[in-house]
């Protein structure tokens, strides 16, 4: 019997401290849905907050739409304290009644187009959709300069964009490409383009592919420009970030506080802190444009793309975008994915 007894003792010995740690883990945390470490440097932002306050914000890999779906499924028993979205999805989630009103410190300084008047969501930073190109992975092919270039057979099996039914950046792109191509409200121009692009697509990413692009596994990623600039300047990758000739899409990224969240007292200071100079600077260091005015060093400013690159940026109407979101996702699933 001694081996079984030993096994049992081993199991109990293992279990006891962990049961205790389970209880302990619950006190000093804030749960943020859509807290992808390599997106907008959330890894760096949350690490700094933990350093300053001891409060832990565990990484969460859900994209905007997945976060909204999870919040809705957990409505009766919310698990998250706050969520981060691309603006249109955050707007939609507010309309579904998933958020509670909170106006963090500094809220009044956010331009009124970038926040909900009732405090249901507010912008923390903005990004633009660009082409993140790993030059060595192109294997000698020229760096594409426009959305039209991406349709060339040269780039077959090289292009990736995020699945818009899961990730907010992908949704912003799928929605916005129509406006860039000067399409009408029927979205046909955009979908016709996406249909053609489909021939060159390697994958519709369900999770961030930051590392795959940096490694050279994926040559071209249509994503937030800031992520590409971080690969180039922070991770020293052989990366070029291209704002396509046709134009780009401005993408505000928003925070919201979840209704009936489990740790409201820990969450409010965190949401305040995200608008503080420290946090906004860390976001800027990963090339997402802070919503608050913070002083950036000249060296850092030089690494951002020049303002002229964004001359043709499209600003999408959030209310309309949120109202059409489900229909666009469904159309994308039916026409493009399958």
């Amino acid at each position: 019997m001694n081996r079984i007894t030993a096994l049992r003792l081993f199991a109990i010995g293992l279990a006891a401290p962990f049961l205790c740690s389970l209880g302990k883990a619950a006190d000093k945390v804030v749960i943020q849905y859509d807290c992808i470490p390599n997106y907008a440097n959330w890894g760096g932002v949350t690490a700094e907050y933990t350093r300053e306050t001891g409060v832990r914000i565990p990484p969460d890999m859900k994209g905007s739409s997945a976060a909204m779906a999870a919040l809705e499924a957990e409505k009766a028993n919310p698990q998250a304290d706050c969520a981060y979205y691309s603006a249109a999805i955050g707007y939609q989630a507010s309309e579904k009644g998933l958020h509670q009103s909170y106006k963090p410190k500094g809220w009044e300084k956010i331009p009124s187009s970038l926040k909900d008047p009732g405090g249901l969501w507010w912008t923390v930073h903005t990004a633009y959709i660009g082409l993140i190109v790993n030059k060595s992975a192109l294997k000698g092919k020229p760096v594409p300069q426009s959305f039209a270039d991406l349709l060339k057979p040269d780039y077959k099996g090289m292009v990736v964009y995020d699945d818009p039914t899961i990730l907010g950046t992908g949704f912003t792109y799928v929605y916005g490409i129509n406006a860039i191509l000067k399409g009408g409200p029927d979205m046909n121009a955009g979908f016709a383009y996406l249909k053609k692009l489909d021939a060159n697509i390697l994958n519709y990413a369900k999770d961030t592919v930051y590392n795959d692009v940096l490694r050279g596994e994926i040559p071209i990623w249509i994503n937030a420009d800031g992520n590409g600039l971080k690969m180039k300047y922070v991770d020293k990758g052989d990366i070029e970030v291209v704002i396509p000739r046709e134009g780009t899409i401005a993408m505000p990224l928003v925070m919201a506080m979840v209704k009936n969240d489990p740790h409201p007292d820990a969450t409010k200071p965190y949401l305040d802190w995200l608008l503080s100079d420290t946090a906004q600077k860390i976001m800027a260091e990963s090339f997402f444009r802070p919503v608050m005015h913070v002083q950036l060093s000249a060296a850092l400013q030089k690494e951002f793309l020049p303002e002229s690159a964004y001359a043709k940026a499209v600003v999408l109407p959030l209310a309309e975008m949120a109202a059409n979101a489900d229909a666009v996702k469904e159309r994308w699933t039916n026409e493009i994915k399958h």
Partner: protein
Amino acid sequence: MTKFKPGLVTAHLLTWLLLIVVIAPLLVVILGAFLNVSFLGLASEQWAARKGDGIFNHGWFAYVFHLYGSNILFSLLLAGLSVVIGAAISLPGAYILATCRWRGLRIFEEVVLLPLSIPGIAMSIGLIEAYITFRGQWWLILCGHILYTVPLMTRVLTNSLRSFDIARLELVAQSLGAGWWHRFVFVVVPNLRHSLIVGSLLVFAVSWGEFNVSYLLNTPLHQTYPAALYATFTANSFQVSSAATTIFLALIIPILFALQWLGGDEFTHVEQSA
């Protein structure tokens, strides 16, 4: 027997080939975890390995433990509890299944073993949808693990009980005046020592590697190690993912070798961990 047999040679070659196919990726991953090189591209956590700048380093491991240490503990806890609870439930159950001859029990046994052959994702979805009010509770993940592991344990135990003809042993004990409780404790359980060890190892391995339930039911607070592994595959570089995978392997490989030596591997094919 010295005759050259082309069939035999081909079979050997094929087996060697399969062996290489199985081992090669693991070697790549284990090497990737220890080497500070970028033969598969840059890492976004280069600072993690920069200590000393040598070719060999343990920086990736330190980083994994820092990020996912709590997930490792949580998975170990789940696996340990699955073993204990699984054995407590399966042992009496298997005893009855192996000794009672009532026909209805055969059907029940089929049902008990169902989780071994039906797709895990369907069962996970069922658990999520049916117990939506408990979503986010860590013990719901444990329930999922127990659902996978109890059939496995039951199968190991019933096979063993039937193989040594427990009915006859019991009959002997009964003729000596032992009641069924005495027979259970002093005849059945001691005879099952080997199977219990094999079953526990299997259960531990399955629970440690289980992904379906763990991933679909996980919350940021209670995430099992395989779910965290998936997070490293998407969020971290090849080097960090490799280190995380190596930690996973470090636990599973000894268990599988132990099973091989204990002769329990005939049961392993029923696992549904994929």
